């Protein structure tokens, strides 16, 4: 061990990477709070506390030092991504179960930081949507559209004490993706569906703006070279091309490209979830294939699957393919023959 290099890039650490990702999430979070009420603060707080608790417990059981691994920030990113994927104002145990699946099963069972095959937040989400579909489809309606928008205190009350005092119908509704799916199945004309107040100019009312804020955060990460363009571009292109193709074939059944890009977890998935370096492909070509596949699968699951949104399952399926994709997309090494020569 001769130790070189002795020089290291300044202010560079896993912690710094993770905190920059979290900083890039803040515009989206604020937009979320603005359009859907203060419930998001409760779910963020709960997920953060649960995640740190579970991570610390496992680290202790594994005999690993707490400080470097808790301060690396990775578990916080997982917690925030899961919180932003789940409906707010759900019972507290829903977040706890989601975090257990994300941090304990998906991350620590595989060996902890850097070892997991599957995106932890998406494993948590998938476990919940399979186990508790009812809770997972009750999303707070945008502020102004609901009969009542809970305050922060009411939000805490709803999460911990249950929905006794306020009827959930007063403030929740299905998501636009869900509504589209069920009403198209019932044969409702597309114009009538889109005319409902929950639909905005692009996606769901409010949600479309949150998606744009995620896009802004993603662009910030791109400009600070936290991520490369490959994954978000390929993901959004895969989604747009597939959804656009389906829309052209059957406009009465499949929504348009803009709707798909601005609804559900598309923007969050493209910039924050599919880009998780641990579970994403690593070569430039591999990233394009991996993320393109995830985007394509998102559109297919939304179009034909049983679940309203497809980002989680699409990313998990793409995660499965990563070792294979990486193995066959190794870039040419300097000084090696160019392909075909």
């Amino acid at each position, binding site marked *: 061990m*001769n*130790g070189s290099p002795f020089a290291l*890039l300044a202010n560079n650490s896993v912690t710094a990477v993770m905190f920059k990702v979290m900083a890039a999430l803040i515009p989206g979070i604020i937009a979320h709070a603005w359009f859907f009420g203060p419930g998001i603060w409760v779910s963020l707080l709960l997920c953060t506390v649960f995640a740190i608790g579970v991570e610390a417990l496992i680290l202790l059981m594994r005999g690993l030092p707490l400080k470097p*691994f808790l301060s690396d920030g990775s578990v916080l990113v997982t917690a925030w991504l899961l919180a932003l994927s789940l409906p707010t104002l759900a019972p507290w145990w829903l977040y706890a179960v989601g975090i257990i699946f994300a941090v304990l099963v998906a991350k620590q069972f595989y060996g902890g930081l850097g070892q997991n095959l599957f995106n932890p937040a998406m494993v948590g989400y998938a476990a919940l949507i399979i186990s508790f579909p009812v809770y997972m489809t009750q999303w707070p309606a945008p502020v102004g559209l609901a009969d009542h928008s809970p305050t922060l205190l009411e939000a805490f009350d709803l999460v911990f004490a249950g929905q006794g005092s306020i009827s959930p119908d007063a403030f929740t509704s299905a998501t636009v993706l869900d509504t589209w799916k069920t009403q198209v199945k019932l044969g409702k004309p597309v114009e009538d569906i889109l005319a409902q107040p929950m639909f905005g100019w692009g996606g769901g009312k409010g949600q479309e703006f949150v998606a744009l804020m995620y896009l802004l955060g993603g662009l910030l990460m791109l400009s600070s070279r936290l991520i490369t363009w490959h994954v978000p571009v390929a993901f959004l292109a895969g989604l747009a091309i597939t959804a656009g193709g389906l829309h052209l074939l059957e406009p009465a059944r499949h929504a348009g490209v803009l709707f798909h890009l601005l609804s559900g977890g598309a923007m969050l998935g493209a910039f924050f979830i599919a880009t998780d370096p641990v579970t994403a492909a690593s070569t430039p070509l591999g990233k394009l294939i991996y993320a393109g596949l995830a985007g394509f699968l998102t559109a297919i699951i939304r179009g034909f699957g049983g679940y309203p949104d497809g980002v989680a399952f699409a990313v998990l399926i793409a995660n499965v393919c990563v070792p294979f994709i*990486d193995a066959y997309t190794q870039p040419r090494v300097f*000084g*090696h023959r160019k392909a075909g020569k």
Partner: protein
Amino acid sequence: MSRQLFTFNGGVHPEGHKAESNATPIRPMPLLPRYVVPLRQHIGAPARPLVQAGDAVLGGQMIGAPEGYVSTAAHAPTSGRVVAVAPHAVPHPSGLFDLCVVIEADGEDRSIDFQPLDWRKLDPSALRNRIREMGLAGLGGAVFPSYIKLNPSGQTLHTLILNGAECEPWITCDDRLMRERAAEIVLGIEVMAHTLGVKTILIGIEDNKPEALAAMGAAAPSGMEVVAVPTGYPGGGGKQLTYTLTGVETPTGGRSTDAGIQVFNVGTAYSLYRAVYLGEPLLSRVVTVTGHVANPGNFEARIGTPMTDLLAAAGGALDGADGEIVGGPMMGFDLMDQAAPVTKSVNCLIVKDPVRFPPRPTTLPCIRCGACARACPADLQPFEMYWFSRAKDFGKAQSYNLFDCIECGCCAYVCPSHIPLVDFFRFAKSEIWEREQEKHGADQARQRHEFKEFRLEREKREKAEKFARAAEKNKEAAATTTTDATADPDAEKKKAILQAALDRAKKAKEAVTPRNTDNLPPRVEKEIAEIEARRAQAEAKTESGEG
């Protein structure tokens, strides 16, 4: 500059820290009481010691002779007495000792007579031989014997690249050399170009050295092109500079000469100038001493100068110094022992302090972020190589082209998990080498054993055959003696000859021997005649009855 430049992938931009040491001229060093000259300062076989303890030496006298093809000579830096030829601390990452000639200076600093070379008239092969004897080796760090690189050996070379990029942070010895001794460097380059027979000569210097660029530009005659290359590490790596200037990728496992390009460091060109124009072997080099020292700068240090004296020349380390780096911060190594001397490969000594060289933070697991792959100038996937090196799955590490790694350290520089990636790659490479050597050794042992078996078997067989032949012969001989006389014409002949001889002898005997039968009465004579006839008859009978 009109030349089209090419941009290699990857690379990093660490803080330069050049200003600390490049503002003052190269300083001479005082004559020291003691020098330590290692016999292994170059790539290849160590030099064979020509002196022993007690010998008097003169400056420039060869004290180590090149041994084998890839080798070069070592010389006494001054006049004095050899006090030891023994293992001594050397600047090597392992900290292991190596064979050195320790010389106590007599203070007179006398030298052998230096004979300048008429390089234009000298046969290239003779010139190379002289350069070999003068101990020239690449001063950029690889210390490959120069005479080999000056031999086109059948390859047609078209381009000579002079590496004045000096991309490693902190190091400024080439910068100062180019500023101060551009004319001499150019003379050395001319010799190189002449020997190699190249048409194009490019001098690549990073654009953070405007003074060196100007000095070299002013000194270079037409036909030598001074090119400013973008500042960035490792832009001065041989492969990277070649690519930047020509767009040619050095083939994997090969050399740039395979593409008709030869690369030398500017410091080597300067030492070639001294060798050819002054007839002086490689006795000194410019070394940067910088970092946490009182008077950082560049020093003309004789090969063999102990590091302690070099540090003292720079005013000594300041309070709070925390060890030294030999070489640059990207590829250098910790100095294990300050008694180790300056060798041909030592271009820089950096005294560390905890502020500018903090200890490496805790290593975290790899998160596959790919920052290393984006920084790698060889377009490798370091995190994959790390994964397999760590798991000691060396075959897999090799399949990710481990041996294309130039150990520049860019990957470890950018790693957010602070993984000492290059250490893992060095470890994997040395393990693979060791295994191959072991395998090679085992193969050789097996071959030796098999040959021995074969030889023993052959000897045994030969012995057996010899015995068999001898037995055959004996048998044959025996058969001959027992054969019937009539059956063997040879034996018949022999017998006839023998009989004839016997007859002659008999006759002679009869002729010589006086006979007491003379003057006998006729009756006795008749009796005798009858007896003689009977005896003859009987004799004939016995003879024919033999067998």
